[in-house]
């Protein structure tokens, strides 16, 4: 269905009906996603970026939280695969009338949804959806918990630059406690053999990592950003929500900038070919100095482009159509 010139990935080991997080992925499953995304990248390089792989399938973007890039990325990905796409937002639906998540899912199912891409402000909501829905659920970000497609596109971007991920060192800087992106990346990176250093104000670091055990292996916490980025192959800054200051987790944004901003000076301590990443949107000159955000080491725009390929890959793999290749 893709076309004859596109190498079809072998998907015998792909057993997921939903994509809720990457914590249950094997290294082989990551590789299936990446090789499928390679095929999708090839499609995206063509003048006409459209294939009939999901023709006749309906993809619903069910967004309980505002989003620009993730929602648009999924919409483009689904349309590139010729799916019918429906966008449902909480503010313009019966959700505002108090309709429950399960009722909403049943309605979408009755309307023929095959895949539901779901963003929700409550952690775990996609797990509830997966229990009660016949459609495949893709978690497009839930509360503070997980954002698996963002992690997959981050890992895919690193893989494109570095070849293999095993043995690489990543440093994640910022509000790790509330970052679903960081949580999924920690799982993905460590499962693929990377070491992860977390750095940020103590009030924004996750609990329980002083004794991570089997939950988060190969993770360490470092308070000083200069030490955290030393020899790092990847430095990922996280978006700082300004309300963290209002809720007493930060003395001031100014102090945060002084202590944790990724500057070109601090990046000198990292590996020479370090990749600077950010899930976006960037608060310029807060978590990243402008010259870091847009410097030659930055792959932030590539992350956005790779996101479409990764999301096409996930939609394709969950569609069950790969048997038709």
């Amino acid at each position, binding site marked *: 269905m893709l076309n004859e010139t596109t190498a079809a990935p072998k998907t015998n080991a792909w057993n997921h009906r939903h994509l809720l997080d990457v*914590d249950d992925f094997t290294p082989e499953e990551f590789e299936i996603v990446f090789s499928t995304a390679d095929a999708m990248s090839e499609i995206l390089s063509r003048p006409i970026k459209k294939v009939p792989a999901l023709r006749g399938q309906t993809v619903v973007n069910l967004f309980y939280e505002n989003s620009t890039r993730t929602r648009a990325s999924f919409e483009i990905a689904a349309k590139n695969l010729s799916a019918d796409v429906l966008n449902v937002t909480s503010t313009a639906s019966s959700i505002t009338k108090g309709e429950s998540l399960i009722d909403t899912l049943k309605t979408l199912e009755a309307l023929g949804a095959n895949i539901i891409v779901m963003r929700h402000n409550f*952690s*775990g909501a996609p797990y509830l959806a997966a229990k009660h829905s016949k459609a495949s659920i893709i978690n497009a970000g839930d509360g503070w918990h997980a954002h698996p497609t963002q992690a997959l596109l981050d890992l895919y971007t690193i893989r494109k630059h570095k070849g293999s991920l095993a043995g690489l060192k990543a440093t994640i800087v910022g509000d790790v406690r509330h970052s679903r992106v960081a949580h999924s990346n920690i799982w993905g990176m460590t499962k693929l053999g990377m070491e992860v250093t977390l750095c940020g104000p103590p009030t924004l670091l996750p*609990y329980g*990592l002083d004794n991570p055990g089997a939950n*988060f292996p190969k993770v360490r916490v470092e308070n000083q950003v200069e030490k955290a980025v030393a020899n790092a192959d990847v430095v990922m800054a996280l978006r700082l929500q300004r309300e963290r200051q209002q809720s007493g987790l930060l003395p001031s944004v100014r102090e945060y900038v002084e202590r944790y901003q990724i500057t070109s000076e601090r990046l000198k301590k990292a590996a020479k070919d370090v990749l600077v990443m950010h899930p976006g949107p960037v608060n310029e000159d807060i978590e990243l100095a402008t010259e870091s955000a847009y410097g030659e080491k930055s792959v932030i725009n590539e992350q956005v482009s790779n996101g479409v390929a990764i999301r096409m890959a996930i939609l394709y793999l969950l569609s069950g159509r790969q048997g038709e290749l």
Partner: protein
Amino acid sequence: MKNFLIKGGRLVDPAQGIDGKFDIAMADGKVSWIGAGEPPKNDYTVIDATNLTVTPGFIDLHTHLRQPGFEEKETISTGTAAAARGGFTTICSMPNTNPAVDNRATVDYVKCVASREAVVRVLPIGCISKGRRGETLAELGEMAGAGVIGFSDDGSPVPGARLMKQAMEYAAGLNLPIIDHCEEPSLAEGGQINEGIVATRLGLAGIPNAAEETMIARDIALAKLTGARLHLCHISSKGSIDLIRAAKTGGLKLTAEVTPHHLTLTEERCLGYDTNAKVNPPLRTYADIEALIGALLDGTIDAIATDHAPHTENDKCCEFALAPFGISGLETAFGSLMKLVHSGKMPLPLIVEKLTAGPARVLGNGFETAGSLKVGNPADLVISDPAAEWIVETAKFASKGKNSPLAGEKLKGKVIVTIYNGNIVHEEDIR
């Protein structure tokens, strides 16, 4: 009312120091004889308790019956039927109903419905503050006159130390305990589960141990100041145990309870976002469980109470953050606790003590008779089979609340017969 002769069982009555093979007779709703051999002549219905355990009826210091106001979750009728199924013959009902039990009229209402519909003894608890709002004292004296056994804003702490001090001073004059839900609201705000690695994994806001411990420290200080009787609800953390143990050596009138779920389940039950494991205080860690067991063994904790908190399926079938806290616990309490016996962590007589004589001592004021099978006491009695294996089928619960994290789990240890005031109020189908 029949007269019963229960023969061949292992009689365990910690209040009397009895643990052995004795027969027991009940006549006219009271215990009439304990011994071996021939009982006093009477027209008995004989129950063969060979290989079974015979104990006083259990006392639950902490039950949510939901009536008035939340009858879709539970009623006094269904809640007491659940109690009977769990072996409880006396339950203390928490006042967080709608309207809250914060005056004589609502106490009278609960007692009136209970006298008509309850199958076991219901002892109401009154609020500490009007409407449980933590602002002004409820009419503690009037409620005492109407028969409450203590005062609590359970479900919520009393946030202001000044009001708590006043409540303790007033309750001390009534010789009734303040029964406190210990939780510092600013530390627990927004929290869903125990603060720790599982909360991190699930991306949920945590409730730290310190939320409980700081409030316990405050209340102990106030109890010292006022001389009040203080009973601490559903203790969950090792740090709390340390505080209570130290305070008890100072001679305070301090008692405390722990729930079966905090003794047997850890925070990991929440993995997969099982809202049935969402409870307040949250399930904590193995280290906390070990401390709680140690506190039962050395007497720091006086009683095991269920904190039975029934909710509807709709209430719990939602996003984790939106689900209410609570576990429907009356019917699984004994089976859960037997895990501790079968694993060698606690002896059976101690479990029985914490379900009978222990809570009876907390109640005081003449209610001690409810916790013992002394001749002449009310015939409240439980026959249980410590070896019976059964699967927790929530659909069979007498409680309207089917919200149990143990659904589908195999337990070993089951209540077979419950007798209240000389009447069988629960009997297993298998017998």
